[in-house]
């Protein structure tokens, strides 16, 4: 139930805020170094990082619950135990992936 609602919430967030940030990033890159500076200044501010963490988590959550929906589309995974287990795994998985992503960004390069 929670994961199903989260799929909509994260999808809507990605489709609005995420798409806006994505288009801004590309348009800034195309406009030149100065416009790009403005974008990166926003993106690396505490608010920008907060939104970035939120969007990356939303992406991983939406992707994982999307994959779960594929399994359910083929008619599998409806047993109560399995259904609950994989729903929980999307929650755990998105947190793990988001952590790895930002750890790599912070230290890996």
């Amino acid at each position, binding site marked *: 139930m929670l994961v199903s609602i989260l799929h*909509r919430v994260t999808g809507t967030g990605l489709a609005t805020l995420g798409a806006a940030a994505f288009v801004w990033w590309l348009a800034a890159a195309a406009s030149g170094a100065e416009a790009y500076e403005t974008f990166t200044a926003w993106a690396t501010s505490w608010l920008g990082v907060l939104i970035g963490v939120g969007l990356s988590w939303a992406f991983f959550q939406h992707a994982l619950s999307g994959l779960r929906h594929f399994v359910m589309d083929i008619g599998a995974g409806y047993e109560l135990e399995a259904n609950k287990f994989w729903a929980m795994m999307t929650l755990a998985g998105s947190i793990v992936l988001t952590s790895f992503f930002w750890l790599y960004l912070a230290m890996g390069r």
Partner: protein
Amino acid sequence: MRLETPIARVRGLGSARSGAHHWWLERLTSVSTLLLFVWLIVSLLRLPGLDHKNVTTWLASPLAAVPMLLLIASTFWHLKLGLQVVIEDYVHEEGLRLFSIVLLNFFTLAAAALAVFAVLKIALAPAVAA
């Protein structure tokens, strides 16, 4: 007595008339969007830095620009289909629903066009200058 076959009754004749097609496209674009985003994340993480020069040099190569254009098409198509379902489920007033879906179509296309233009400008700029 019904003269039509059962399959003729089922085909495309749900209450929304076109539900199966929408459902299928949503699945199709979800696969392509996921694959292309894995490509984008890996590509960006592999760049030496995410400053203007690094990003535009990378995006100017055909093997980055073309997947990026595909990603834009796939992503905006997918998010348009997804948001349409959200609107259809939560906006109950007929006129407002129609208005919202029209707006959704306009905004999605405008945003996608802006993104496509940005990629093309970066990708084609050196060729124009030379």
